[in-house]
């Protein structure tokens, strides 16, 4: 187990730059999730750490050791692949011990290592089967077993759950989290699924277009996204964005949304200092669906600051726990999260409450958080 540091890492394929100056650093035992849409460079970054590709520039360190020019087999890492990449001609036992065998570990030690890992992952009855005789979830376990048996410094996971069906994916997610808690190992995990990222990570690195957008704890990324991309990518349903103007009304800043007929004015009671500079300017107002609910009052929750406004309801989408209510404000579809017993019928008008303590404001040009 060890810490991992990426220092100004760049990667270019010919003239195409796929990773631009990535700086990341995690401590021993952390669970780092690299998340982003396809083509954002997250898998390339993982391959750089694994040594399957070489970086164009920058330094990669495991612990204090610079590993840029170290062969993958000498980096003391283990990797779990999206397709599992089990050797089809070998039994599960052989698959798990192949790496040990290549490294010249004795027969007795190998047997013990397999037994331990098989017990941990509950795959003992499968040891003498071939990969073709296993189900998707079982293959996934074997692939993890192959990584675990080596007791590496860092585990690398490349979208390991994306080939499983929805239910199994959730189960395996929990299992990976449990495994991490039990072993305390350092893990780098690549996914395009923001829910996986939120649930698993101790820290998330959100990437887009080869650029690291934000690197922080899941809660911070959720509550204080650096820019509009991160705000929109993390969270489901995604954050609502509305064009607005920040107005200074007798010392109180308020978000003013131009709406035909009745403009909405949402006062900010505890505005951070950084908002002052944008007084009188255009901003993008971001609010998550759960901060936009049926009518509530501030007494419902001590920390919240509810502001009410009316809107006509376009569509409702019940999910059971909550009813997603789509309203239209200034030509944009906005999703509010309403308790089912308070759910309106489409077409009728209803009073909504916005929790102004949970909003984000962005600069409309740079799309950065204000």
């Amino acid at each position, binding site marked *: 187990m060890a810490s991992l540091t990426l220092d100004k890492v760049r990667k270019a394929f010919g003239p195409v730059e796929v990773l631009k100056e990535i700086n990341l650093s995690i401590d021993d035992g952390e669970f780092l999730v690299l998340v982003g849409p396809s083509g954002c460079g997250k898998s390339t970054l993982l391959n750089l750490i694994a*040594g399957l590709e070489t970086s164009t520039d920058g330094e990669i360190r495991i612990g204090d050791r610079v590993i840029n020019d170290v062969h993958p087999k000498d980096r003391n890492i283990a990797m779990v692949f999206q397709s599992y990449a089990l050797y089809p001609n070998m039994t599960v036992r052989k698959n798990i011990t192949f790496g040990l065998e290549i490294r010249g570990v004795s027969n007795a030690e190998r047997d013990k290592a397999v037994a331990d890992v098989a017990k941990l992952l509950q795959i003992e009855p499968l040891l003498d089967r071939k990969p073709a005789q296993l189900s998707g979830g079982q293959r996934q376990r074997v692939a993890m077993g192959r990584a675990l048996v080596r007791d590496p410094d860092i585990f690398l996971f490349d979208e390991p759950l994306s080939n499983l069906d929805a239910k199994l994916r959730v189960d395996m997610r929990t299992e990976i989290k449990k495994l991490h808690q039990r072993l305390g190992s350092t893990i780098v995990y690549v996914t395009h699924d923001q829910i996986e990222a939120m649930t698993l990570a101790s820290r998330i690195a959100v990437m887009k277009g080869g650029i690291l957008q934000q690197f922080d704890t899941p809660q911070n990324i959720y509550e204080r996204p650096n820019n509009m991309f991160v705000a929109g990518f993390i969270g489901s349903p995604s954050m609502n964005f509305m064009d607005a103007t920040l107005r200074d009304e007798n010392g109180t800043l308020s978000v003013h949304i131009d709406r035909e007929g009745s403009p909405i004015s949402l006062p900010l009671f505890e505005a951070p200092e950084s908002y002052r500079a944008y007084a009188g300017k255009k901003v993008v107002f971001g609010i998550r669906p759960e901060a936009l609910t049926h009518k509530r009052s501030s007494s419902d929750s001590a920390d919240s600051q509810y502001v009410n406004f009316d809107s006509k309801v376009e569509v409702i989408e019940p999910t059971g726990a909550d009813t997603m209510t789509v309203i239209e404000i200034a030509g944009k579809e906005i999703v509010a999260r309403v308790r089912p017993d308070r759910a309106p019928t489409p077409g009728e008008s209803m009073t909504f409450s916005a929790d102004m303590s949970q909003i984000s404001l962005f600069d409309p040009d740079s799309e950065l958080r204000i």
Partner: protein
Amino acid sequence: MADIQTYSQDAGWKNVVLRGLLYLVLILFAIYYLFPLIVMISTSLKSLDEIREGSLISLPRVITFDAWNYAWNEACVGVECTGIKIYFWNSVKMAVPAVLISTFLGAINGYALTKFRFKGANIVFALLLFGCFIPFQVVLLPMSQVLGKLGLASSTPGLVLVHVVYGLCFTTLFFRNYYVSIPDELVKAATIDGAGFFTIFWRIILPISTPIIVVSVIWQFTQIWNDFLFGASFASGANAPMTVALNNIVNTTTGVKQYNVDMAAALLTGLPTLLVYVLAGKYFVRGLTAGSVKG
């Protein structure tokens, strides 16, 4: 009801007629293709007298294997009357190493071209592919020069070399296309496990290559065994392969034309490839289509 019945009866008759026509055509084609073989076999089992007296298509009255025995042990190839057997072994000594070496090299090439992609891999592959379209005749002269310089002219090893070089393009193509469908992650996983180029090849890639190895072996064996031009050009006299010897037996113009011996010799020459197809034919078809199914 009645209408429907007559209608279905009509359709039934139509079906029977069409089916009958189909079988008729198929049987005709089968006869067309089988007839020469039947004539060859029946002629090879007749005595020379019977051939002279009877017609070409009549079946043998007395079955005799004399002609087969004669062709194998005594037939005259040129001035040597030692039978076709030494040439049969010449062909075996040529075909077996040439098939194995070209298949093995094709496997390594295909593996390197797909799983250890180096700069210019595509160009190398394109050039190799180009080699598949070079006609035999074009390489005859340069090849004979090369063989002369290597001191391999008119020898079985020389012929092996020629067939390996010529067959490499095809075997590489087979293996390359097969390995393209094997996920790269397999090699990556093995790399992280600590295995090198050849360890991965021997331990992981080769064991899952059986279908394409069968294809390559059948293809190469048929090509090399049946080859006449290279054999006639690069291995003369006592080192000639069976196809060349057969030609020399059949085309001898002195003495009585021994049709039964000619036929027996031709059948003996064709037998090994026939055997390979019978034994491994189903793997051949399976292997040819294996690339299209994701592994």
